[in-house]
């Protein structure tokens, strides 16, 4: 029979949830004991997001090569100043020539993605390391989460969602305008039309799978049985919502690709493949 060696009483002060007692946790010095490559996912997120931010910033400030009849880059749509190339959207005002039309509008998609519940997870983990991965200690001494300014402003997500829907309508309209040829005649289609259509479709999927959308269409209800139509909407959005992360990434890549395609057309690097 094994003899049990006395190693202290094992008694601890019960935690009462007020944080007043000393931690008395197991003394483990290692920041984490995980043996898998937990750092890979945040690293890939940083690489992908930084690449997009650099590309989109350059393109937004470039103020050129964003229109190639009949296509307009999603970075510049809706194009609302008199300096805009093309006629895809009513020109609302004349801004300083040195300010790119993209600067006026990009706050909407930027704000929508910045406050998105998925992207918050992604950048809190990968940029702010809070935490870098599950059960990996974060480097910060204090943590207040989204309880105070500026992060409490994440709660405006639903307003960016509403504005994002309006932008989706405009980008869908852009895709419809792409069923024209270089002279403006309707009933034509090229590879660029498909690119803009795919971009608009992906943005709709990303927007409609949003957590705020899920709440607005029916999630706020407590009695689905009294609102069968909204329950149906909620069920559909819930199904989309399970793939919100995938839609977030694919639509991000889609926007960049659509812009790149227009850039290559506008610079004459490639010519559009016309179907009819």
């Amino acid at each position, binding site marked *: *029979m*094994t*003899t*049990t*060696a006395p*190693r*202290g009483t*094992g008694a*601890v*002060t*019960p*935690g*009462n*949830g*007020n*944080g007043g007692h000393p*931690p*008395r*946790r*197991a*003394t*483990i010095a290692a920041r*984490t*004991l*995980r*043996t*898998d490559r937990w750092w890979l996912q945040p690293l890939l997120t940083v690489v992908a997001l930084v690449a997009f931010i650099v590309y989109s910033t350059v393109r937004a400030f470039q103020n050129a090569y964003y229109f190639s009849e009949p296509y307009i880059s999603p970075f510049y749509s809706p194009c609302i100043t008199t300096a805009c190339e093309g006629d895809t959207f009513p020109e609302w005002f004349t801004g300083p020539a040195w300010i790119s039309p993209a600067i006026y509008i990009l706050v909407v998609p930027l704000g929508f993605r910045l406050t998105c*519940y998925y992207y*918050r*997870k992604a950048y*809190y*983990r990968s940029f702010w390391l*809070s*935490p870098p991965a*599950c*059960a990996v*200690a*974060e480097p*910060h001494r*204090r*943590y*207040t*989460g*989204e*309880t105070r300014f500026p*992060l*409490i402003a994440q*709660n405006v*997500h*639903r307003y960016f969602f509403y504005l994002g829907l309006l932008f989706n309508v405009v980008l869908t309209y852009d895709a419809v305008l792409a069923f024209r040829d270089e002279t403006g005649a309707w009933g034509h289609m090229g590879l660029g039309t498909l690119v803009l259509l795919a971009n608009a479709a992906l943005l709709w999927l990303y927007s409609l799978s949003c*957590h*705020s959308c899920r*709440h607005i269409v029916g999630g*706020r209800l*407590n*009695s*689905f*049985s009294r609102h069968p139509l909204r*329950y149906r909407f909620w069920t559909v959005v819930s199904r989309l919502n*399970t793939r919100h992360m995938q839609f977030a990434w694919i639509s991000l890549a889609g926007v960049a690709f659509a812009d790149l395609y227009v850039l290559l057309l506008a610079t004459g690097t490639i010519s559009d493949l016309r179907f009819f």
Partner: protein
Amino acid sequence: MSYDATFRVWRGDAAGGDLQTFTVPVNEGEVVLDVVHRLQATQAGDLAVRWNCKAGKCGSCSAEVNGRPRLMCMTRMSTFGEDETVTITPLRTFPVVRDLVTDVSFNYDKAAQIPPFTPRARDADGNHRMQQVDVERPQEFRKCIECWLCQDTCHVIRDHEDNKRAFAGPRFLIRLAELDMHPLDVVDRKHAAQDEFGLGYCNITKCCSEVCPEGIHLTDNGIIPLKERVVDRRYDPLTWLGSKIGRRPRR
């Protein structure tokens, strides 16, 4: 097929401790808890470990296996290579009692602070009536076995002991969501969720969902919907206005 595995097990108490290395036979089909029991039976008779059902339903054998919060009874040895060292430590968020046993009373204290289920008045015939479609959503959260793995992995209290005062942890945020979504409940818990239970501390990094052995989508189906409900009450002027002119329910 049996083989000898190398285990590192944290041994000690609140006064101190360290990882001790053991070589233990492992048989085909075994889980980590089987090996810990063999270790206890053959080499370390005084090893303290909490366990009960061995079926992933009681939530007792929570520990950290190779740094990841897991139920030992649901962690198959076949997920590790035969030459891989398996490291087992107690839950790092809670005070250690001894070896792999921690004092999780923080959770019971928080549970006691949640305003209980408060149903509306019964119908005229004395019954409570609700449709299945109305309770399906909160029923997901009833699967919780209170293993406290979500509480353990949540960085808000894992990395910041002082936040335990203000933050209840993901398990109790979904309890609040469950009650708030319940078709019969009449208590508004949205302000309490934000002010008393620290909903705003959650930055939705989803570790709670990753470690849940019951596969509950704590973040997507519980915490985020609860955050959105709080936005309705506190940060959305249109919804606030709607509640004032009677176009939106007040609770």
